[in-house]
């Protein structure tokens, strides 16, 4: 056991790392089950463990609440609804395998997509081949509905629309002429910022002066922040998830940079505010774009929010709301189709219209839902959190 074996040690260590990191792809043909035996089983794959577990939990809670209500009202097509749920562990390859299992072993007529975009993208390959509808309640990547797939529907708001609205709001309402941006270095952050936000800001006469990136899970954004501050911008746009946003806001205050910040849909989550100390909330100038804000005044939404709080002991987020509404959209589609047959279901989903708690839902020809949007401002003074300052009707963006 000399030094030689230690260097082998390291070699195997890296070999093991590569194996763990290597993506796997599977694409096998499969068939759909027919007929109307009760209960009606729907498939769901979501991350209950791993990096995406928090979003997966929200989706699971929203779905569970919707399913219980639908069942209390007599189910779908006279059948009780049952969700066969598998944990993807936040690994897209697992999501693909589990989707295959749902289709071939469990014979589900429809699969509910994951709350992680990359997982839903992996699942779509399987469902498209098998011609089984996949309904994605909440996932942001534009790719889900931009690849011309015939068997996918996505209910949550598309990040591109949010980016267009946001660029207009920043340039025209906030009046920032020189804009800095910091984004998550993944498709989630990169694509809306580079392809939509930047060009749209310029159309509005503002300039994207400096763009900095960070990696998901980063816990220090001070290098980027100081660089942006040195560029002398009027404000900073953030595009990423809530954990890194909390770090950014804290460091913005700690380092006395104090830039006004405009954040994307990924930060309008109760979890985000919980991570922010009160003094940071009070001293930060923050607006954000979202589809749903849990501190709304809308009485119907408030009633739902209260119900969610009672059941799960926490505030709902947009993923939970999309999961809840999804069950009712599916009920309407199944009942319009009159069966679980895939082509009838495809037709029904293309035509479905539903007024959910989270607003009106209908789909364009790509399967992308046309949704409303809102811009919210963080107003900690009355202890309310986010307050909606502008609402946009479905189809406007």
């Amino acid at each position, binding site marked *: *056991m000399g*030094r030689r*074996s*230690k260097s*082998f*040690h*390291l070699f*195997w*260590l890296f070999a*093991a790392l590569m194996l*763990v990191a290597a993506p796997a792809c599977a694409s096998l043909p499969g068939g759909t089950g027919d007929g109307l035996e009760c209960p009606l089983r729907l498939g769901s794959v979501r991350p209950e*463990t*791993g*990096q995406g*577990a*928090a979003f*997966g*939990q929200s989706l699971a809670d929203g779905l569970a609440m919707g399913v219980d209500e639908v069942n209390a009202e007599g189910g779908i097509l006279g059948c009780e609804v049952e969700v066969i749920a598998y944990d993807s562990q936040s690994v897209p390859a697992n999501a693909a395998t589990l989707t295959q299992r749902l289709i071939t072993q469990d014979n589900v007529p429809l699969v509910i997509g994951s709350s992680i975009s990359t997982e839903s993208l992996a699942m779509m390959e399987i469902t498209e081949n098998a011609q089984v509808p996949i309904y994605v309640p909440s996932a942001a990547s534009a790719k889900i509905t931009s690849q011309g797939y015939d068997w996918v529907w996505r209910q949550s708001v598309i990040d591109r629309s949010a980016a267009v609205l946001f660029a207009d709001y920043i340039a025209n309402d906030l009046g920032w002429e020189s804009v800095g941006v*910091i984004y998550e*270095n993944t498709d989630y952050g990169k694509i809306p910022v580079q392809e939509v936000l930047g060009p749209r800001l310029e159309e509005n006469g503002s300039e994207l002066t400096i763009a*900095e*990136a*960070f*990696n998901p*899970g980063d*816990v*220090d954004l*001070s*290098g*980027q922040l*100081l*660089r942006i*501050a*040195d560029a002398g911008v009027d404000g900073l746009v953030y595009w990423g998830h*809530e*954990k890194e946003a*909390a*770090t950014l806001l*804290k460091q913005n205050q*700690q*380092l*006395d940079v104090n830039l006004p910040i405009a954040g994307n849909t990924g930060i309008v989550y109760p*979890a985000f505010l*919980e*991570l*922010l*100390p009160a*003094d940071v909330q009070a001293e930060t100038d923050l607006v954000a774009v979202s589809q749903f804000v849990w501190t709304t005044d809308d009485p119907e939404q408030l009633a739902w929010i209260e119900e969610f709080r009672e059941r799960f002991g926490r505030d709902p987020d947009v993923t939970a709301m999309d999961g809840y509404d999804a069950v009712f959209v599916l009920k309407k589609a199944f009942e319009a189709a009159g069966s679980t047959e895939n082509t009838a279901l495809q037709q029904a989903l293309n035509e479905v219209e539903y007024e959910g708690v989270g607003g009106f839902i209908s789909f364009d020809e790509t399967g992308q839902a046309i949704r409303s949007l809102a811009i919210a401002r963080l107003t900690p003074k009355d202890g309310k959190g986010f307050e909606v300052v502008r609402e946009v009707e479905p189809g406007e963006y």
Partner: protein
Amino acid sequence: MSTFLQHLIQGSTLGATYALVALGFSMQFSAMNLVNFAHGESFMLGAFVALVLTSSLGGSYLLAFLGAVVILGVFGAIIERISIRPLYGTSELNLFVATIGLSILLRQVGILLFGADAVPFPAGFGTSNIAIGPAVINRQQLGIIVAAVLFMVGLNLLLRRTRLGVAMRAVAQDPSTAALMGINVPLIKTLVYGVSTSLGAAAGILFASLTFAVFDMGLWMGIKGFTAAVVGGLGSLPGAVLGGLLLGLIEQLSAGYISSLYRDAISLSVLILVLLVLPAGLMGRRGSTWGKV
């Protein structure tokens, strides 16, 4: 200039945490011939145990901090006894796989006990800023640097001034001779594992007070700490400290002055360069000894 100074402060804070974790990797490697995939999880568990203790001890940060460090030390020793010691004498690969499994297990236990969401963590040393010339240092950052230095001094005293420390160093240098001299080698290995787990826990608590606690925080910290330990020279304790500080500063400066997009690529390239010139790491030596901390 003020920005540069600020970068140095931020980089040193980050580097001090890397160094504490890297110390654990290096201790385990030299005393146990173990590269421990699960070491990053001590960072996560330390933070959560301290969080539980602050809520049950009525919010005393210092007590919770020390309590969690001790608890994790004992926990580490137990884990070593149960899951690592039985594998000695088998292939080194078995040890790898065992620590990979252990890491996944601990992370999932973290989710089960503490949930998947990031949890806010009290800023134990206060949140106000202290001006240093044109730059500012947060009390918490100062606390991290001071605490990291104290832990390193403490570790040095343990290794140099106590019989236990002498035994640990002897095992690291030559386990067979140490055994012949009457040292209980397996016990010493267990204790080394415990001490390194304590160091990881301390780093986790300090860092969580600056950010938040989340179940997967040990994953990236494990990678960074391991990188720092390798660059410093795996097995060398002064090297671990140097590697940690260097990694923190390079990361910060490359994000601040070159490109945030390629921050990790740049810092890792610099580190690969270091290894090309000095294959054993900055302070690594043949027949690695622990040297001074």
